[in-house]
């Protein structure tokens, strides 16, 4: 996929540059952007090291487990099929907690473990279970406590307040997660599309 996108972007850029008679600017931009990528990486390096170091303390201090314990009762409600299976629910909660803290490296193995546990409950079917759908929709829309990379990019670009978008990120993620939950419940047929919809939806939103 990225093969097409990347080649397409470059080809379109050079061709349109030729048509527009901006070939010189385009060539110059190619070289300066490549240089800019290195500058950006160096600009991000400090903040990412700082953040990774801090996250290592969080990881060793068991913060993932702490967040997981707080989130468990809430998540239990979203996974009715996995709620009574300690292994499956545990892995799901741990993965989402690691994502919440922005610990990408720790989150992926936990997520794969969660998928394996859910697949065990799914009895090895090759069709996704409702719990899997819920898990992945939550995984792709879930909140990140501190959007460290974005803050680093903003700081590098000379923002007066690089972290000021944090609350916006939270609100946008909460909106996405809530609509994701509602969509999964609707699409899985747990909520019948008829009468019970408004009441049930409101209940979910409140949680």
């Amino acid at each position, binding site marked *: 996929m990225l093969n097409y996108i990347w080649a397409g*972007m470059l080809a379109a850029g050079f061709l349109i540059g030729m048509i527009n008679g901006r070939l010189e600017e385009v060539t110059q931009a190619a070289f300066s952007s490549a240089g*800019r990528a290195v500058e950006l990486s160096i600009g991000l390096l400090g903040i990412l090291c700082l953040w990774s170091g801090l996250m290592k303390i969080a990881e060793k201090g068991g913060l993932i487990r702490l967040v997981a314990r707080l989130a468990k009762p809430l998540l239990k409600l979203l996974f009715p099929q996995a709620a009574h299976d300690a292994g499956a629910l545990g892995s799901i909660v741990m993965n989402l907690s690691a994502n919440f803290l922005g610990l990408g490296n720790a989150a992926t193995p936990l997520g794969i473990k969660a998928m394996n546990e859910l697949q065990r409950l799914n009895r090895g079917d090759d069709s996704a279970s409702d719990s899997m759908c819920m898990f992945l929709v939550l995984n792709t829309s879930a909140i990140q406590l501190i959007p460290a990379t974005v803050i680093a990019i903003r700081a590098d670009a000379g923002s007066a307040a690089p972290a000021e978008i944090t609350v916006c990120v939270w609100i946008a993620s909460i909106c996405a997660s809530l609509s994701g939950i509602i969509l999964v419940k609707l699409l899985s047929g747990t909520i019948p599309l008829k009468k019970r919809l408004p009441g049930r939806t409101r209940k979910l939103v409140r949680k």
Partner: protein
Amino acid sequence: MNFAAFSVISLYAVPVIFLIILGVGFFREINVYDAFVEGAKDGISTIIRILPPLVGLMTAVGVLRASGALDFIIYIMKPLVSFLGIPPEAMLLALLRPVSGSASLALVAEMVKTYGPDSYVGRVVSTMMGSTETIFYTLAVYYGSVGIRNIRYTLLAALLADGVSVMASAWICAIIFGR
């Protein structure tokens, strides 16, 4: 409603999390400094991992910008998305984001630089980048790991939730910071 409170929360979020993490570390009797230094090394490997794709993709975005193609795409998108209240620049990111994380990072870096990090577009693309995920990649990795072939409605629900996130980002930034 007083939206100044949100800026205050944003201001406090990072320091408070520093304190919580350090507090938990001390409470659990971790050698916090040693752990920090060990973790900071991961930052270097992360940068080394993202540098080559960033060079490739920022070059592509830079070429598109210089050729005038980027402005043309944004111009075309304007009537399509303006009624939703989304800036067309952000819509470009919205299309790229589910497909590629590093390409989106390159686009956000370019836009934040071009429009300014504290402009409306700069804030919206920052918020979007922080609140959305590389959906196709995530689904491929997780479903691939257990051999699921029929993913049913997962992609639909994930993309719709992503769309909500895009619109919410544009609206919230407009409400809190103004356009």
